[in-house]
C-alpha cells in the first residue's frame, strides 16, 4: 500500500464486480455468459470493462435464450469450466427453469457429474420494476434438491459469497438484490477472502427477539432493531446469507436464546422460505418458544408497479416494529 491509498468504500455492486474480476484472473476456467454483458457491461454494469480485459470468449454475449444459455453453461461446467451466467433480471430465470431444476440440480445425484455453475440473479423490489422486474424467485429453487442458494445483504458478503459460489463444485444460484446495488457500501479487506456457503451470520446480537432474515430485509431488520433499542427491546438479527443449505444451527441457537422469533422476507408469504424456517422451529425448538412464531413477508400477489402499491407490498421497518412489540408484550 502506498501512503496515498486510503481505504475506500466499495458498493454492493462493485463488490460483485470485484469478485468476478478476481476469480477470473486467478482461474482461467471461470468465464461469463449473459445478455449484454460484453461491450455494454451488463444491464447493471457489473461487468463493465470485463470484455476488454478478458476477451470476447470469456465474457460472452449470448442470444436472448435463457434456457439455451443455462443449458450451455451446464455443459461447459461439466467439461471443467466455471461458468457464471448473468440473468438480466432474476425474473427471467423462469425461462431457464427446466434446465436448472432437471439438468443442473440432478446431474450429480444421478450420475456423479459435477456442475460447478453460478447463476447470478439480480432480484427483488423497491425499484418500481413491476411484476416482471422485481421478483424474489428463491423459494422455487429452495424446494429443489441439488441447488445451493445464496443471498448476500452486504458488500462483504456479496463478494465473499460470490467467490465461494464460483469455487463451489455445485450449481449455485446467487441472488443479488438490485435495491442494494448502489445503496450500501463498506471498506473491504484487500486480501482474498470467501464467505463460506452454508453459514448464517448474526448481524446484530440481541437477547429478546430473533429476526431471521436475508437480503435487503436485513437492513430493514437492523433499522427496526435500532429503533426498538430505545424502547428496551433487544433484537437479534440473523442474516441467513445462504438459503440452501440452511444454517439451521445458527437459527435454532438464536431462537433458543431469545425464545421469540420474527421471520422476515421480501418474497411472498405462502410457500416462502419463512414457512420452512417456522416449521423447523415448530418441530425442533418447540419448547424454547415463548410466543407464537411470527412471519412478515409480502402478501401473495405479483409485485405491483405503482409506487403506493409496491410500497404497500414490501415489508417495512414498521411491520417489524409492530410485530416485535407484540412479541415483547407476549
Amino acid at each position, binding site marked *: 500500500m502506498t501512503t496515498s491509498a486510503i481505504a475506500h468504500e466499495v458498493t454492493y455492486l462493485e463488490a460483485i464486480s470485484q469478485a468476478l474480476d478476481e476469480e477470473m484472473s486467478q482461474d482461467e476456467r471461470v468465464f461469463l455468459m449473459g445478455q*449484454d454483458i460484453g461491450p455494454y457491461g451488463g444491464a447493471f454494469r457489473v461487468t463493465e470493462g470485463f470484455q476488454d480485459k478478458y476477451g470476447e470468449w470469456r465474457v460472452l454475449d449470448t442470444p436472448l435464450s435463457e434456457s439455451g444459455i443455462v443449458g450451455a453453461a451446464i455443459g461447459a461446467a461439466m467439461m471443467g469450466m466455471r461458468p457464471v451466467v448473468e440473468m*438480466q433480471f432474476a425474473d427471467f430465470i423462469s*425461462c431457464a427453469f427446466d434446465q436448472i431444476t432437471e439438468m443442473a440440480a440432478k446431474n450429480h445425484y444421478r450420475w456423479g457429474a459435477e456442475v460447478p455453475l453460478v447463476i447470478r440473479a439480480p432480484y427483488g423490489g423497491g425499484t418500481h420494476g413491476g*411484476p416482471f422486474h422485481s421478483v424474489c424467485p428463491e423459494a422455487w429453487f429452495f424446494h429443489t434438491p441439488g441447488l445451493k442458494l445464496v443471498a448476500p445483504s452486504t458488500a462483504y458478503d456479496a463478494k465473499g459469497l460470490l467467490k465461494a459460489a464460483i469455487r463451489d463444485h455445485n450449481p449455485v444460484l446467487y441472488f443479488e438484490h438490485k435495491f442494494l446495488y448502489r445503496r450500501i457500501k463498506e471498506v473491504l479487506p484487500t486480501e482474498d477472502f470467501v464467505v463460506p456457503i452454508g453459514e448464517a451470520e448474526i448481524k446484530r446480537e440481541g437477547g429478546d427477539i430473533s429476526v431471521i432474515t436475508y437480503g435487503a430485509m436485513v437492513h430493514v431488520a437492523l433499522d427496526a432493531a435500532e429503533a426498538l433499542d430505545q424502547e428496551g427491546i433487544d433484537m437479534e438479527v440473523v442474516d441467513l446469507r445462504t438459503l440452501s443449505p440452511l444454517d439451521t444451527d445458527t437459527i435454532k441457537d438464536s431462537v433458543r436464546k431469545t425464545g421469540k422469533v420474527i421471520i422476515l422476507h421480501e418474497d411472498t408469504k405462502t410457500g416462502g422460505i419463512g414457512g420452512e424456517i417456522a416449521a423447523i422451529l415448530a418441530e425442533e425448538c418447540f419448547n424454547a418458544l415463548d410466543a407464537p412464531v411470527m412471519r412478515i413477508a409480502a402478501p401473495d400477489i405479483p409485485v405491483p*408497479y*405503482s409506487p403506493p402499491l409496491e410500497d404497500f407490498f414490501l415489508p417495512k421497518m414498521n411491520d417489524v416494529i409492530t410485530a416485535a412489540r407484540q412479541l415483547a408484550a407476549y
Partner: protein
Amino acid sequence: MEISQSEFLHLYYYLRLTRALEERVTTLYRQGRIVGGAYTSHGMEAISVGYASALQADDIIAPFHRDMGAFLVRGITPGEVLAQYLGKRTGPTKGKDGNVHMGDLKRGIFAFVSHLADNLPVATGAALAFKIRGESRIVATNTGEGGTSRGDFHEALNFASVRRLPVVFFCNNNQYAYSTPLHHQMAIKDVVERAKAYAIPGEIVDGNDVVSVYLTAQRAFQRAREGEGPTFIECKTMRMHGHSEHDSAKYVPRELLEEWKKKDPILNAERQLKKLGYADEPDFHEIHMRVEKEIESAVEFAEQSPLPEGPEALEGVFAANPVEVLI
C-alpha cells in the same frame, strides 16, 4: 400502391400520435416523473401502426414492447397510456403493471409480459379458439428480432403452422436487442429465414414504410382469415433511441443512425402523401396540432388521475365472476 386517401391519412395520423405520445413519455422520463422503465418505438412507428390498422375490430393483437401504435389504433387512449406510465388507477392495469404492459380484452389486446416471446404461443391459442369455433377472426402478434431466439418463438410458430392457425407473426427487426447486434443474435442475415423451419410463408417489408406494412399485413390477414394459416413478416427497421430511455446506446454506430434518420417513417409517409396528392404541409401541420392537443389533454388526464391506494394491491389476484369477453 393501392391505398386510399382516407386510409393513408388514418395511418399518418396514428404515426404522428404515436410519435408525439412517446416523445412525451421520453420527456416525462427525463423529468423523473416515470418511475419505471420507458421503452419507445421511436423511428419504428410504421410497423405497429401499419399492422394494427389492417385489422378488423374483433381481431386480437398480442403486441410486444415497441407497439405503441397498435395500442393507439386499437383504441387505448393517450391518456390511458400516460396514466399507465405514471402508475395511475386510470391506466389499463390500474397501476398494477407499468409502461407498455397494457391489455384489454374488450379492445382485443393481450397484455405483453416482459418475458420476450411469451406472447407468441398465447397468440396462437387465440387463433386456435377462432379456428375451433369457426370464426373468421385472426390474431396479429409481434416480436423483436431478439425475441425470436427464445424457445417460445419456435414452439409458437411450429404449432401455428401444423394447425394452420389464423395468426400472423410480425418481427420488428431493429437490428439490436438491447446492445446485442443481429450477428450475435443469429447466424442468418434475414430473420425471415426462421420461417422456413415451419413451412410458414415469409416476407420482408420496409418497416419504415407504413403503407408497405399495411398492405402486406392486409394480404397476410386475408390469407389467415381464409384458412391458409400463418405468415411471418419481417419488418426491417432501426431502433433510433436507446433500448430504454435510460440507455444512451453508445454501442450503435452514429452513422447507422444518421442513415436511418433519413428513412424516418413520418418523413417517408409525408413524401408519399405529397406525391400521391393526398396531403401537403398544411395538412401535416393541422394533424400535428391536433395530435399535440390530444397529448396535452392526455397529460392532464394522467396527471390528474389518482394513484391507487396501497390496499388495492391486494385486489384481483383471482377472478371471481366472468368478465365480458369478445366471443
